[in-house]
């Protein structure tokens, strides 16, 4: 076994050295994995191999080991705990939380797992808090759009792209945009999945050449990243319209728009509640007479 790495922190997050923590789990057990199914003496060895893979930055390989252990011993709380952490590293947050909760259910005083669960649950909040503080600073390099009709009037063509899979959010937004545009020429776009829910939308397929070109591109919602096609769309202007979003999603979309389209992004916040929560200027995306959106005075 490597000796230098044994003094490094344990991947379980205990803050202790590996050798004093999970590295100290039984290491002298038999390695015979072909023994009878009731025989679990091979488990510690498999756990050690998996832990080593995890520490070496190969969470998927580690996860395989933990899964093997769990297949034979579904109540192995160490494997549940560590698999939870590798799942998290792999970006499967829901799985990770479920695994940690399961380990705690089996052993209510499993403090390390509880602390890790607490940490993982707090990460999105911390991320959002930073996002809330960062977003207002970002406004210096975006163009807050106060009146959508005026903004859109300068465009030769308006491409509206649905970028949110929550129907209850997208529908009212599309209604408002459509009314605000009046008779101006426009095309409605959605990707192959969302287009099923949005009648009349053209399917976005950059590889087949089906993509918005030129004009003003209006991105409805910040939930989905436009990175996969924004680079090839080459709009003259891009406007992000948000109704109900996390600050992080708005920041990421604005960054992507600036980086991929090379334009200064426009931002329209169409909900008073969101504008207050994220400290954004409120935009009117409908004519001032319409009752739906509150108008900034």
């Amino acid at each position: 076994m490597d000796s230098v790495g044994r003094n490094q922190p344990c991947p379980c997050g205990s803050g202790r050295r590996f050798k004093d923590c999970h590295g100290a789990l039984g290491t002298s057990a038999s390695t015979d994995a072909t023994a009878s199914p009731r025989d679990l003496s091979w488990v510690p060895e498999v756990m050690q191999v998996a832990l080593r893979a995890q520490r070496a930055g190969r969470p998927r390989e580690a996860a395989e080991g933990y899964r093997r252990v769990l297949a034979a011993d579904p109540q192995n709380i160490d494997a549940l705990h560590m698999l939870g952490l590798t799942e998290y590293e792999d970006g499967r947050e829901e799985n990770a939380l479920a695994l940690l909760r399961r380990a705690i259910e089996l052993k209510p005083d499993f403090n390390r797992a509880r602390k890790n669960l607490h940490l993982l649950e707090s990460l999105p909040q911390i991320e959002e808090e930073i996002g809330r503080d960062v977003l207002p600073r970002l406004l210096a390099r975006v163009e807050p759009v106060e009146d959508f009709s005026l903004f859109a009037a300068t465009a030769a063509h308006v491409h509206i792209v649905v970028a949110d899979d929550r129907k209850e959010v997208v529908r009212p937004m599309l209604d408002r945009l459509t009314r605000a545009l009046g008779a101006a020429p426009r095309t409605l776009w959605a990707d192959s999945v969302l287009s099923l829910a949005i009648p009349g939308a053209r399917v976005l397929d950059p590889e087949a050449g089906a993509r918005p070109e030129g004009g003003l591109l209006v991105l409805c919602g910040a939930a989905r990243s436009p990175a996969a096609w924004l680079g090839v769309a080459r709009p003259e202007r891009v406007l992000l319209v948000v109704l109900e979003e996390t600050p992080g999603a708005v920041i990421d979309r604005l960054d992507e728009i600036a980086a991929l389209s090379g334009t200064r992004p426009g931002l329209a916040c169409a909900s008073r509640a969101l504008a207050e929560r994220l400290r954004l200027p409120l935009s009117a995306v409908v004519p001032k007479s319409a009752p739906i959106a509150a108008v900034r005075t």
Partner: protein
Amino acid sequence: MSSPGSFSSRDAAGDRLRAIAFYRLPGGANESGRAPDHVTSEWDAVRAAQPEFFGHAQPQIPGEFGYCDVRNADVREAHAALAREYAIAGFCYVFRAPASTSELDPTLAAIVASRRPDIPFCVCWETTELHAGAGFQPDEAAGQRLFSREECIAMLRTLLPVFADPRYIRVAGRPLFVVSSPDPLPEPNALAALWRSECMRAGIGDPCLAVYGWISGGGPDALGFDAIVECPPIGCYPRSKRNEMIPLGNEVAGDVRSYRSWVGQLLSSPRPPHTMFRTVMPGWDETPRAPAPHWIFVGANPESFALWVERACEQTRLRHAGDAQILFVRAWNEWNAGCHLEPDARNGRRYLEVLRTVMQRPPSSAPPRPAWSTVTTWLSDRAGFAATRVVRSRPDEAVAAPGPRVSVVMPAYNHERYVIAALDSVLAQTHRNLELIVIDDGSKDATGKLLDEYAARCRSHALTVVHQPNSGAHAAINHGLALARGEVVAIINSDDLYAPTRIARLLQEMEHRACGFAFSNTRFIDDDGREVEALQPYTKLLRGAIAEAVRAPDPLYVLIYNNIAISTGNFIFRRELLERVGGFCAMRVCHDWDFLLAVSHETSLALVDEPLYEYRLHGTNTFSGSRVLGALETEQLLSRFFETLATHRLAADPAQLERFLAQVRRAGFGGYLCGESPPTLR
């Protein structure tokens, strides 16, 4: 050897905060004017990096300096000129040991011999490469170069003329020498002592030895070192974003992490008990290291970096004094980790501009506690109390109730769901001599209406409802307190509950123990009023802390690291204290804790170990969305407390003070006990 933490004291003598950027030297000579192989190959890797997902900013292309070779003196000169222009006070030159440690890195030797560039510097010996995976050393670590004692001493001797250079950066007069990781060194403790005596003998003075990176188990003193230089991205657990990325190939090979979650974690980590210099970083993307395991941070932008720098500066000012106010920046030119202040084609000088803007801003300070006379001007101010809408109950004539008059102050904001239960719990108090003052802080839900209806119904007590425009919890409490006329004041949150005997019990204890201030143990309840599971980490931690405080000679022993009173709603105190302490300060999260510690100067605190306050944990608790800000405010208020410790009532008895300080160190809060501040000198 000096005592650790000896330069962590804080004084008000001028702001000398310096930003020092890590600057990597490539090693190898440059006599032919042609880049040696490893320099070329590092740039080749940077050039060849392939984006792994849509929107992945690779390859990163250098900006105005191109694929430059920093062994060229003109390049270094130009870099230094740019750094100076953007408020960078110096470089920390990072070098790797040449094959023979009795030779100095040739570039470093040239910098010393030529006296160019003329920018202050210190050095960092990179004993092992510190990339993201280094926290969990891979098996390949066996192939790492280890150094013998003789090599380490030879290495230091080559550095003596470097330390003697007039440009060399010193902390409290001591040359700052950074070692990237002690792992490949033999017996760091003995080695540090040897290094120190070598330096002393050479007349350079005791060096300030710092470790760059993560130390498992204990602070730098465990290694015989003086300080730690924080080494992002090691030592954190940022949120994974891998599954959110749309892969360009089969899958995303790198470990994709959220920059924002990681900034948040670093900023909310508590102040360490040892000297630690903070390090900020504009971004991290090790894709040039692929196919080896590599981390990629997404969501980095100049604005997030600005927030990080701003808060790190504030922490540095709180933690260090004089020339120890150093903020490190990783890095000027760590191109193969996507970590560079040196301009690139995408962002140009934007990160440098952000850094300069923040560094040149005057230091901000913690919100002061307003003098009580300032708070009460609100009563006579035409735009203050006179501008609010007031609804009063019309209580039936009643015989005067026994005991002191208690004014209960309730700041209320958007708690339509809970506010009636809260009011009921006050009016149900067994202590009857009460008045109730509710400040509706511009609620947007039905809270205001419910309060008015309640006042109209209430016949048993004097109840005043004041509707003011939203001005924050601390202001609402201050206004309520300004209106209070009772001899004793108590506060309650609009989403919490009093136990029926709360006020009676606490008054009794205040009298019995001759305290001006009391608070109780707490029951944690959820939305529906059910008790929250005791094993939940937050409640478990608090339970443990409260139990400890009950056993301690004074609740302050615990209050220095945990706000066990939990909330202003748990406060009851003699109103006269306000004249001496002032009102609540404008901290958003921790105004209560700050007030409590201030009160402790004036009176002892009675902690009653009975669950007389029911605190509701729900999704909208202020603290749950403000961990990062809460961490900063905690540091601000504790700094304020420890600065005035010498005049605290605890300091009147030296034996008591000594016990208290021992507890402060045991709790890991020794970082607040500045070397020079009076209490520790006793």
